[in-house]
């Protein structure tokens, strides 16, 4: 190596090399040193530098360049020889850049640490607020603990959340001058505030004591608080509404459901309320697992209609309302289903609706229909009865006349006797029909049940199979009961019919009556009866009997049996008996016959049985017919009857005028030149009712006496005319003697309160 080589090395080395003599004066500076000091060699040489004091150890200095720049450098000093004299070599390394980088790194490290703290804070908070079913108060309290470490100076940081009227603070919270706040928004409205305060003063930068990142952090936390509050409140509201819905759903008698169908026809129930189990007999769980369980319960005959109904609803997007039968417990119940469709995003359909058991409603509808039918039947029956009575009147009237004309002819009298009996039977039947049509008009009178049975039985016997033997055990001393005669006759008739139909002839029916007292305390044996005296009527047969199930339902109006009562079902019997404050019980065993027992409250004192006026069953021979002289106006639209009336009246000695319509009658009343003493007024006329005719003829002839003549019963239109002032009433068909009596009575002014015929 040459000197030049060494010079090259010194000249090119990066470090600055300076040689200082014993006085501390610079003797040499290499190009790097010149650059470092920012001075030329001439400027540096001969100038005082100073002693680099410590041998072989690095010492840190700051170099001041000519321009005033400061360079951090490391200086090492060694001893050397320069120009033969002892000197010091100082080697200086510029660390400025390195120091700067170090500083920057530290700064960046610090910044990073701060960001990490903030992110950790935010992350922890986010995890915290995601917890389900936690109250907002709990979350706010827990957040307090997480907030502080997120700030630069956690030891002097405190925080407070104010939201929804509540405040949550860290333990060390104080209002100070160094505060940072961020508003909390709930549903877009300012609802609270998050505050972070420093308890002591901290070095301020341009932004104040809080950094830009802390500003972002507090805003981020406030935003999360707002959203969390919204979410929690929404969850609470949802839970409340779910609870409410569940209460409604569980307490509703209707089964609430949600039913879905996929585009390929698969169906399922996403919700069914629990009451379905009581309604149909399958649990909600089972149905939601397998929807075919409930669909399979639809009655086979209704399945197609049901399916079509749902399909139609799916196509038209209209609600469906279906009524159909379901099989339950071996029987049938009626159900009503409603559903409102909503199309789903996947092309399927969702229905929300309810199912209701409408079996009771259906029953009532059927009952109502039956009642209406009965009503119209009743009206029909009434009409028929009226016509019958009119025809019967002609028959009985003429038969009586026959009897009068041939009173000595035995053969003819035999015939007429039979004819009258038959006619009376017919009359009795029509009176039954009328009573039925009248809707069970109730006219109770005191009477003896034994006598009633005795009177009625002969008629009923004709209807029984001749091989059935009827025994009676009717106590003559039974107390009176207050009953509607016709209704009790109907009861007897129905029970006899049932008994006879249960018997495979030969057989026996026994009817008995007796007194019985129900003691205080023994009412358990006779449920439904109050203590007191009763009269018992019982009908016992040795027919095939009934099982318990049949017996239990025998009074049920909808229980179809083989017993077809003629004109009345057992239900009506039950109704009549209970209407009389009585009780009825049925005792039966299959193969051992049936006993029906009726209890009727007895009248305390034995009352006189009033003789029934106008009793039609008793055929009292008319020996002396009361005659009279008067002019009678017959107002009647049926020609045979008009002829009959004329014949009878003339036979009795009266003068007869005829009118076959209401108008004719009024005309006659107005214009007839002569006295009219009495009018026989039919209720049913072709142009107007007797009720309308009455006031018109009375107007024309104020002193006219009127006897109302009707095929109907007294009640109703006939009574109304009587109330309006008519003097008497005669029911068709009547005996001539009855008519004759009545005429005499009215004409002589002997009318009493008209007693009803039945």
């Amino acid at each position, binding site marked *: 190596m040459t000197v030049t080589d060494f010079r090259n090395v010194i000249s090119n080395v990066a470090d600055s090399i300076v040689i200082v003599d014993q*006085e*501390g004066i610079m003797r040499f500076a290499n190009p790097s040193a010149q650059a470092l*000091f920012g001075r030329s060699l001439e400027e540096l040489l001969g*100038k*005082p*530098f*100073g*002693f*680099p*004091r*410590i041998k072989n150890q690095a*010492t*840190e*200095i*700051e*170099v*001041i360049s000519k321009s*005033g720049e*400061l360079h951090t*450098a490391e*200086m090492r000093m060694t001893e050397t020889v320069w120009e033969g004299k002892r000197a010091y070599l*100082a080697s200086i390394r510029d660390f400025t850049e390195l120091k700067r980088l170090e500083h920057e790194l530290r700064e960046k490290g610090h910044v990073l640490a701060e960001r990490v703290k903030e992110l950790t804070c935010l992350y922890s908070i986010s995890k915290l607020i995601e917890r389900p079913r936690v109250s907002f108060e709990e979350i706010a309290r827990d957040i307090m603990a997480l907030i502080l470490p997120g700030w630069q100076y956690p030891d002097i940081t405190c925080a407070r959340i104010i939201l929804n009227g509540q405040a949550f603070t860290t333990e060390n919270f104080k209002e100070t001058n160094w505060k940072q706040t961020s508003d909390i928004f709930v549903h877009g409205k300012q609802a609270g505030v998050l505050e972070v305060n420093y308890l002591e003063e901290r070095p301020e930068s341009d932004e104040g004591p809080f950094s830009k990142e802390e500003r972002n952090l507090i805003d981020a936390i406030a935003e999360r608080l707002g959203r969390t509050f919204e979410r929690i409140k929404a969850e609470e509201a949802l839970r409340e509404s779910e609870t409410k819905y569940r209460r409604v759903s569980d307490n509703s008698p209707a089964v609430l459901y949600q039913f879905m169908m996929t585009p390929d026809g698969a169906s399922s129930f996403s919700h069914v309320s629990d009451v379905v189990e009581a309604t149909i007999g399958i649990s909600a769980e089972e149905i939601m697992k397998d929807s075919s369980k409930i669909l399979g319960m639809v009655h086979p005959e209704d399945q197609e209609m049901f399916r079509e109904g749902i399909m139609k609803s799916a196509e038209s997007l209209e609600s469906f309302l279906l009524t159909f039968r379901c099989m339950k417990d071996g029987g049938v119940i009626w159900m009503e289903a409603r559903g409102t469709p909503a199309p789903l995003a996947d092309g399927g359909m969702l229905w929300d609706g309810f199912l209701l058991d409408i079996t009771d409603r259906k029953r009532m509808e059927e009952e109502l229909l039956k009642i209406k039918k009965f009503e119209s039947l009743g009206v029909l029956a009434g009409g028929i009865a009226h016509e019958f009575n009119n025809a019967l009147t002609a028959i009985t009237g003429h038969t009586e006349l026959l009897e009068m004309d041939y009173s000595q002819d035995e053969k003819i009298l035999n015939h007429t006797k039979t004819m009258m009996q038959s006619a009376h039977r017919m009359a009795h039947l029509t009176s039954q029909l009328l009573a039925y049509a009248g809707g069970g008009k109730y006219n109770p009178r005191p009477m003896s049940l034994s006598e009633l049975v005795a009177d009625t039985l002969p008629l009923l016997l004709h209807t029984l199979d001749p091989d059935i033997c009827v025994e009676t055990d009717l106590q003559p001393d039974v107390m009176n009961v207050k009953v509607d005669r016709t209704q009790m006759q109907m009861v007897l008739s129905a029970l006899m019919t049932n008994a006879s139909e249960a018997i495979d002839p030969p057989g026996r029916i026994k009817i008995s009556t007796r007194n019985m007292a129900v003691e205080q305390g023994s009412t358990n044996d006779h449920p439904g009866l109050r203590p007191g005296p009763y009269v018992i009527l019982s009908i016992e047969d040795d027919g095939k009997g009934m099982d318990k199930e049949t017996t239990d339902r025998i009074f049920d109006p909808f229980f179809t049996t083989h017993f077809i009562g003629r004109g009345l079902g057992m239900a009506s019997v039950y109704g009549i008996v209970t209407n009389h404050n009585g009780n009825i019980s049925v005792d039966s065993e299959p193969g051992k016959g049936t006993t029906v027992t009726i209890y009727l409250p007895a009248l305390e004192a034995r009352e006189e049985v009033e003789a029934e006026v106008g009793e039609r069953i008793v055929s009292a021979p008319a020996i002396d017919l009361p005659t009279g002289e008067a002019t009678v106006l017959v107002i009647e639209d049926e020609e045979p009857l008009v002829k009959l009336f004329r014949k009878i009246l003339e036979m009795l000695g009266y003068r007869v005028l005829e009118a076959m319509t209401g108008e004719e009658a009024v005309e006659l009343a107005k214009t007839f030149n002569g006295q009219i003493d009495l009018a026989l007024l039919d209720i049913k006329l072709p142009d107007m009712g007797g009720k309308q005719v009455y006031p018109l003829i009375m107007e024309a002839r104020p002193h006219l006496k009127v006897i109302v003549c009707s095929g109907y019963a007294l009640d109703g239109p006939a009574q109304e005319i009587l109330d309006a002032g008519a003097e008497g009433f005669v029911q068709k068909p009547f005996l001539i003697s009855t008519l004759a009596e009545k005429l005499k009575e009215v004409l002589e002014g002997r009318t009493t309160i008209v007693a009803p015929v039945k």
Partner: protein
Amino acid sequence: MEKVVLKLYVSGKSPRYKRAIEEAHRIREKLSGYDVRLEVIDIREHPEVAGDDNILATPTLIKKLPPPIRRIIGDLFDSDKVLMVLDLAPLGSKATEI
């Protein structure tokens, strides 16, 4: 009493310079028999002064009086050694070569 004038040049308030200032004060304490004046100049605050004494680096400690003028650059650790270099013997001791 002999007068001693010391000037300490620093640039800034970093720990290094604080230390240097402390050490300068220690050195002065060692010069109890002298009338010592110690001046600390921060060339960051007064950059123009650097040129007066031709300061090329800090810390630099200059003994202005008594002559000869001596200057030390860098660490002022070990005040005895520093005094030696500055050619200042604490009264009652001999100066020796570094």
